[in-house]
């Protein structure tokens, strides 16, 4: 214990879950990278790079080609959901870090 740096001792006292700043940061980065991967796949993947291939399929009801839909509407819905997931994840992570039940 005595060798630990002051920051770590501090957080160990307040965080029963035993989360260090380093762990907190790593979890944060992992979450962000996953979400950005999805962000990239729906917009640049489905909406641009593979739009032509996806255009062979259509949205339920058959009204809109799938690639076109991703480029003009679908990606935006996914963006909103991504931020919602991020908010929820981070709020819980913060609460755990601060030693409270989320």
């Amino acid at each position, binding site marked *: 214990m005595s060798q630990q740096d002051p920051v770590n001792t501090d957080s160990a006292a307040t965080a029963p879950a035993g989360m260090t700043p380093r762990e907190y940061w790593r979890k944060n980065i992992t979450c*962000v990278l996953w979400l950005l991967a999805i962000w990239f796949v729906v*917009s640049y993947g489905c909406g641009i790079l593979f739009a032509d291939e996806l255009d062979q399929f259509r949205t339920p009801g058959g009204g809109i080609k799938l690639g076109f839909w991703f480029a*003009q509407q679908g990606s935006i819905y996914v963006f*909103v959901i991504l*931020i919602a997931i*991020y908010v929820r994840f981070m709020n819980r992570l913060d609460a755990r870090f601060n030693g409270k039940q989320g």
Partner: protein
Amino acid sequence: MDVQAWTFLIVGLSFALYIFIAIRSRAGSTGEFYVAGKGVPPLANGMATAADWMSAASFISMAGLISFMGRDGGVYLMGWTGGYVLLALLLAPYLRKFGRFTVPDFIGDRYYSSTARLVAVFCAIFVSFTYVAGQMRGVGIVFSRFLEVDIEIGVLIGMAIVFFYAVLGGMKGITYTQVAQYCVLIFAFMVPAIFISIMLTGNAVPQLGLGGEVEGGMHLLDKLDGLSKDLGFDAYTNGSKGTLDVFCITMALMVGTAGLPHVIVRFYTVKRVKDARMSAFWALLFIAVLYTTAPAVAVFARTNLLQEVPGKRFEEIPKGLQKWEESGLLAWTDKNSDGKIQYTKGKAFNGKPQFKEKDGERVLGDQGQGLLTNEAVEGTNELYIDRDIMVLANPEIAGLPDWVVGLVAAGGLAAALSTAAGLLLVISTSFAHDLMKKTLTPDIDEKRELFLARVGAAVAVVIAGYFGINPPGFVAQVVAFAFGLAAASFFPAILLGIFSKRMNREGVISGMIVGILFTASYIIYFQFIDKDAKPWFGISPAGIGTLGMLINFAVAFTVSRFTAPPPEEVQEMVDDIRLPETDEA
């Protein structure tokens, strides 16, 4: 009541509301003036951010632009919303944790350098002025078309309103007027969209109407593809831009969005980091309402246009469309003298329409159309139509009630004024806080700084108004500039400041300067000097910010490897920004 009376009434009421809110929320301190005392609830901040971000371009121009671009229009839809994901995940929470007032504040403190701060101030002011000129112009166009006053008077009225609440209320006044403006603009955008969606597809939700069926059981988009091809256009749902170009433009718009100072600063106005994340969610949700409706509006408008205009005589097309000829946004030149409008791919003539005049009056043809002095170019297309008409004229083309038309005018004004106010505030804070207080005259007291901020806002309003009345002929191209610069300067600098502890002063300054120089010279060369030159790898100037950003990253990394790491206290600051705040802060 006629259209004009309705417009006066609705616009008048909305203005009265903004002024009322402004008087209620005057700023008393620099904290209130710059960041609304950091006490804005997330939901309200989300709405304010949405109104701040959605400009005259989003409201008036975007759906029209998409309606002429078809699938390629997706670059705007994805670009201008996807940036929020970057903002919410990578920038907003950390900048809020950092605190302070402005973006140059962060750059200056994180990179322990007043040079870095000054580069940031310069970018912030340049980006904001570029943008604000377009907003003032938008105000003028709406006034002149709907209220039939001169564009100059329209701009002056707009200036007076913005002056009132931006100078008096600062961020506090702006925030709550923006909340009201969001409500006005979203209502004004949705009502005609819903009406037209019902008329065309029988579905009251425009987002679903896009995939709906028209009379006869055909899908709306298939019908539009058919109409387009019959007239010699490309199919609406096919793209015509190169994939790499679309990729780069989308990326530049996203990263540019995330780097725009007037949007970033909105996240400084909430109480806690948690609230900053939450308001980013609300903001994108509120923006998404308009941005998922816009592609539907684009399709509705395009379908109506292709059904109502080609092959008709000028006097037969809807009156709501004819009226735009007076403002020079529509023109017809009867190339083959058959008395009917031929509308197909290609230009009717070069440049903007120049109407033949005699004794100050237009010379009219036998159908009441203005005759043109422009020389016709090859091709059979006879119609000139400005994209901006599509949203504004849509309700009239579709024959909607007069009050809807008045509502659209009020919505366009709300969108333009809210964005203008946000930008003016960035200019005034950059001037009073970053330039005067932090750099030139550090020993002024708060009262004096607040006074300077008000003076800065006032001067900025006047300059913006001047550009609104005498617009530089290249407003549209300059917007590419604003995004490119934000993408190539702010975004990498802030991102590295948070995620790379090793990044130092030397790295970031050289990165920003090289990024800006590269992007600026590319845009200036291909946009102004040699317009016909073949761009590199087919990347248009609007997308070059993406490459500028990559170059910025590369230079910053390389230079920082060979120079001293940042001082201890800066590294501690970065550590602190990354950790959540302790509760009940």
